[in-house]
């Protein structure tokens, strides 16, 4: 089944003199996780606020779960969950009271709300702090409580604005597990993040936004592929060997071979990466050279991202 659950076309939103969104398109298929990436001020939060009916927009159209965000806000609200960029829990209440309160506002019965609260407290590792006031929670604990609150109803579409900012590694893992679990059960997730490893791990597709416009919409591996081939890199143990290593790498290279004197390394893009690595390693041994390191470097999402944002900024300057 490949229906589209979130669809935004040509969204435009101005705040006085800044165009937060400038013809932005977005679409997410049912049951997938869509990552929204972009530098600060790119328009991610604005997009999330529009899709969750919190903010009106100037141009374009958006549907969520088959309902028009502008005209059928009520229907949309019945099908979404939201964790905003800013933590939104009632700090006077305890963790449990918060979850029961939101459960009640989602129209669960008292018993059902308590049961849900209990499960979520467990799932997000808050059981020990369950009956303490949220005021005394650490930032990460508040964040987890906030996330739990948006998952009370296992919504059809879940929006998470920087869900793991400020969480420790264990907390991030809990969030990732919860998000993957919801997605596996059919929830469509739209999340914004600044962590590329998170996007790489969680998202089926990544949309990159900058200055309120689409830069790219692709799968994580597709994004990396755009960065081109793997690179073979040899780090010399003795800088005097660099010319010899240059020759070895050049022999298997599929492009320009670069010597980096400062790092004492030689690298080049390669096509058949494993064969190239084996061939180069054999040559190093045959010539009795000692090297500090030899290996394949795969482009990371960070590089893909920086490259994308970099070109965009350059275009801007022109």
């Amino acid at each position, binding site marked *: 089944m490949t229906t589209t659950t979130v669809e935004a076309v040509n969204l435009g939103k101005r705040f006085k003199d800044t165009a937060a969104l400038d013809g932005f398109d977005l679409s997410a298929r049912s049951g997938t996780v869509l990552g929204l990436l972009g530098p600060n001020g790119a328009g991610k939060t604005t997009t999330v606020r529009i899709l969750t009916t919190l903010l009106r927009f100037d141009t374009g159209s958006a549907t969520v779960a088959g309902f028009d965000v502008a005209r059928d806000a009520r229907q949309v609200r019945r099908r979404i969950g939201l964790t905003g960029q800013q933590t939104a829990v*009632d700090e006077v209440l305890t963790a449990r*009271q918060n979850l029961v309160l939101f459960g009640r506002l989602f*129209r669960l019965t008292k018993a059902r709300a308590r049961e849900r609260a209990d499960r979520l407290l467990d799932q997000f590792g808050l059981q020990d702090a369950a009956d303490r006031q949220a005021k005394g929670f650490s930032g990460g604990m508040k964040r987890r409580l906030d996330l739990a609150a948006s998952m009370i109803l296992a919504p059809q579409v879940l929006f998470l604005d920087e869900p793991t900012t400020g969480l420790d590694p264990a907390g991030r893992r809990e969030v990732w597990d919860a998000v993957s679990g919801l997605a596996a059960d059919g929830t469509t997730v739209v999340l914004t993040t600044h962590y590329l490893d998170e996007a790489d791990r969680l998202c089926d597709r990544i949309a990159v936004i900058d200055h309120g416009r689409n830069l790219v919409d692709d799968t994580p591996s597709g994004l990396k592929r755009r960065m081109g081939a793997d690179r073979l890199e040899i780090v010399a143990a003795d800088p005097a060997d660099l010319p010899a290593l240059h020759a070895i790498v050049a022999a298997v290279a599929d492009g320009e071979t670069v010597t980096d004197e400062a790092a004492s390394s030689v690298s080049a893009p390669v096509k058949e990466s494993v064969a190239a690595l084996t061939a180069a390693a054999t040559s190093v041994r045959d010539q009795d050279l000692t090297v500090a390191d030899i290996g394949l470097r795969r482009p990371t999402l960070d590089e893909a991202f920086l490259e994308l944002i970099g070109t965009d900024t350059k275009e801007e300057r022109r």
Partner: protein
Amino acid sequence: MTALAPLPDETFAGRVKWTLHDYRTIVGQEFTHLWRQPVNFLWQLGFPIVMVLLFVYVFGSAMDVTGQGAGVDYVAYAMPGLFAMTMAFGFMNTAWAVAEAKEKGFVDRVRSMPMASSAVVVGRNIADTLHAAIDLLVLFLIALAIGWRSEGTFWETLGAFVLLLWLRFALIWVGVWIGLLVKNVEQAGSLFALAFPFGMVSSVFTPPELMPGWLGAIAAWNPVSATATAIRELFGNPVAAGNSWPEQHALMAALIWPVVITAIFLPLAVRRFRNLGR
């Protein structure tokens, strides 16, 4: 995790039922706040109590409001004024609470949920009115302790109590509107500069007659004065009313003013809430 079915379609009767349910939930939340932070509650009462002590024991001895000499019957005059003033200043608590809920993102979360959108505003009002009733009871007890008495019948006394809440109820809309209007809690906090003259340029502590003409006119027409004068009549406390229409018809004015305030500020508050998404 168990996926829950989306909410079933609602009929009109169902919507009414759920709306009431939402009001109750929000009111319940407010009362949990009260329960959890009794100290806050006492702080909010602190100001009127300090005012009582100041006016009754510090300035009161020099004030001749009844024309029978300085200090005579001042407690009987000032107490009802103080009740009215506490109700008048209460809107700041509302504004502060609303501004905080907005700043902390709580309002946004609630707006993205399928609950009745009026629940935040109406629930706030119900909770604050109930809160005010408790405030008033505590103040009554303090007043009784320092020698104030109601000379009115039980029903007149109760009527005065209701009139006070009536004023508070109307001003809550002002508080909600301002709370949604201000950028942050700090701004809501600085409202005191606005509220103070509104509370004080009135017949709360001094008869308007004793003020310069123009100021006296403002004080006489102040909604807080209308309520203060009306409850003085009901309590059988000294009135010291002038000749202006609201002073002569205090009871009527005390009934009408809150209607006027509600008629203006309820739509403003609701509209402001709806327009939060701009």
